[in-house]
């Protein structure tokens, strides 16, 4: 009864398909602006040897100035705006405010002499790495951005690393310190915006060498790339010292209700140093979960140092250690610093709330924007390869809210980490205070990283 219909239907469809397939779609013209136009790739000064990326030989369909229309540079960003990890989206808020503040101040004066306005296009991937590729694709193909800035999430970045590198599109200032980003030789279009977590661990171990040379360390670490970077960094740094890792517990915030039982387990290990390598609300929870009779020297990751996180510790933040690279707008010592006053005024004028200014999370995003702008300022021409190459040969630079003593140096082939100067801080009376000088780990971040798992 239904068969004749099906056959007829199939015939109609087949005919339709044949007719229609004859008219294809307008293919995007393959990038005509190919090799011959990228004359500036050789650094515009005959320093061909010093250039890290050579798009002529490395890129198919390289589009050097895509995303630049007239005097506007379009940049993109994918962040978690909805869902359980929306708190990380605050970083992007900092970036958005920076872009607005920069535009309000007249724009960026780039190294080619022109002044540019920035346009930021943001997409939401709800922190799900399965959604990131399509959002990034939309930004690249539909919005046609020049570069990504301040991309959030290690797994999210990993999900698009190959695509973006193959397409020769820069991702500037990744919002993660995972040791994965030390591989600039294979993925030269990705450059991290945070210090390596392993370097951070090494900085703390360095401090311990003077304070507690025979430390017995208990580690609670997030069961993902962030935590494993810390673990690898600690293991590497204590080699050859008297320190030992006497207890380690992974923690999965998605599967476990609270870190309490893991902390209790670690307390039983007899450690006198407690390293908290977890980000988010479980970090202050771990501080509160310390049994009353266990008082180890406690370290928390740099990602846990914000005002909100410390408030959640309900008093148990007193005396904890961490590291610092940025100026702290809420610290009276830094309040007079011109970079801080500039941040406060411009951010407030651009509409950032007082809570966000003080919160400590938005400053990271602000900094990524500042990094990108600094690269533009130093670039002799504004095209993708030149901007990246500029980032790969920074010398004693600074940007955004980096502390005055921090010097940014990079070399694509041998020193792919921008921020390698850290100082150890200690919490007291609701404020952070330095306990060491700014120490440089220049050029060593890749060595400090543990083995890649």
């Amino acid at each position: 009864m239904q068969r004749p219909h099906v056959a007829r239907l199939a015939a109609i469809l087949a005919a339709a398909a044949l007719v229609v397939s004859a008219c294809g779609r307008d293919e995007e013209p393959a990038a005509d602006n190919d090799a011959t136009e990228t004359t500036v790739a050789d650094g515009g000064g005959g320093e061909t040897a010093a250039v890290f990326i050579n798009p002529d030989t490395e890129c198919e369909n390289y589009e050097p100035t895509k995303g630049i229309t007239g005097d506007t540079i379009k940049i993109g960003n994918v962040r978690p705006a909805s869902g359980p990890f929306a708190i990380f989206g605050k970083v992007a808020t900092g970036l958005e405010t920076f872009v607005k503040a920069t535009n309000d101040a007249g724009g960026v004066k780039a190294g080619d002499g022109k002044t540019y306005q920035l346009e930021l296009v943001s997409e939401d991937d709800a922190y799900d790495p399965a959604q990131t590729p399509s959002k990034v694709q939309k930004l690249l193909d539909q919005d046609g951005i020049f570069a990504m800035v301040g991309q959030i999430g290690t797994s999210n970045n990993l999900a698009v690393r190959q695509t973006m590198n193959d397409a020769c599109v820069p991702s500037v200032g990744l919002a993660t310190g995972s040791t994965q980003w030390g591989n600039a030789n294979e993925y030269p279009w990705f450059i991290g915006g945070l210090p390596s977590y392993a370097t951070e661990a090494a900085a703390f171990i360095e401090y311990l060498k003077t304070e507690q040379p025979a430390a017995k360390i208990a580690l609670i670490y997030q069961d993902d790339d962030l935590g494993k970077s810390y673990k690898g960094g600690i293991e590497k740094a204590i080699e050859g010292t008297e320190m030992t890792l006497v207890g380690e517990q992974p923690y999965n915030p998605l599967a476990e209700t609270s870190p309490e039982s893991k902390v209790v387990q670690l307390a039983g290990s007899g450690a006198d140093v407690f390293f908290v390598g977890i980000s988010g609300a479980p970090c202050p929870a771990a501080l509160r979960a310390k049994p009353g009779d266990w008082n180890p020297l406690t370290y928390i990751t740099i990602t846990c140092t914000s005002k909100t996180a410390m408030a959640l510790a309900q008093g148990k933040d007193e005396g904890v250690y961490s590291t610092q690279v940025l100026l702290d707008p809420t610290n009276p010592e830094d309040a007079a610093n011109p970079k801080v006053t500039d941040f406060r005024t411009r951010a407030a004028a651009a509409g950032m709330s007082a809570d966000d200014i003080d919160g400590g999370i938005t400053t990271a995003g602000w900094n990524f924007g500042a990094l990108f702008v600094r690269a533009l300022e130093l670039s002799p021409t504004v095209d993708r390869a030149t901007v990246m190459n500029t980032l790969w040969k920074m010398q004693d630079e600074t940007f955004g809210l980096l502390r005055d003593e921090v010097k940014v140096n990079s070399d694509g082939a041998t020193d792919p980490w921008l921020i390698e100067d850290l100082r150890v801080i200690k919490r007291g009376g609701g404020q952070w205070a330095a306990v060491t000088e700014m120490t440089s780990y220049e050029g060593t971040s890749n060595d400090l990283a543990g083995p890649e798992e």
Partner: protein
Amino acid sequence: MSEFFQFMFIGLGNGAVYAMIGLGLVIIYRATGIINFAQGEMAMFATFFVWTLTEVGLPLPVALLGGMLGGAIVGTLVHQFVVRPVGNPHEKPLAVVIVTIGLFLGFNALAQLIWGTEGKVVKPLFGNGEFNIAGVPIDHQKVGALAVLALEAALFYLLFKKTKIGLAMRAVASNSESSGLCGVPVNRILMIGWALAGAIGAVAGTFMAPISALDANLMQGPLIFAFAAITLGGFDSFVGAVVGGLAIGVLTDVVPKYVTFVDKMPLAPAFVAILIVLLVRPEGLFGTKKVARV
């Protein structure tokens, strides 16, 4: 050994929260026959009311009562305007599930919009002190949670078994049409059920928030454990919710410490327990067997 007891009590403390949410789930199931996917999010929402009241200066116990009232109102509104129009859940089970999923998404996003994404501080209702019993430190808060749980379960039990409203609820759950014909104000009874569930959610959240932080994701994990609790204990049993919740809490916090095979799978011991129980007793440990005419 002391460590084992510490784990036990951590598990009991967490389990008390799962059980409290479970009680809310059981109330709604007994009154309406629905599993309310949005129970956790409604609880989170009510907890934000509690927090807001503490921010205004009220002491926590008073704020909690205020939050319970707020939760009750939210529950009532949800029933009147969202659940009731869908119709009889026995006829359209999937439709009702989808509606509660919609509420789940909605409340979560609404909380984020209203109160932002940063974690808020809620202090423990019973303070930060600890008992020291035979060398084992046990938080006051955990003991308090267990006491409050017992109180809630007792109150609900008394409500259902000894009061007229409880009788009316059982009638409505058994056969709403006949109950209506007998003069039971069916809709009002259903509303009361949802209101109670909303109120108890505030209590659950107030005990959950100090464990981590109060944000929109407060109940995402605990809700799953609460589902596991009532599956283990039986959808229509208050005792089942309590026993189930505590059991799930203990299984989740204790077993992975000693069985390395599941050390990264906290839910696994609970899952296995549920499977075993259901295979032997498909209606859960304390659930009532359904008898239907074929």
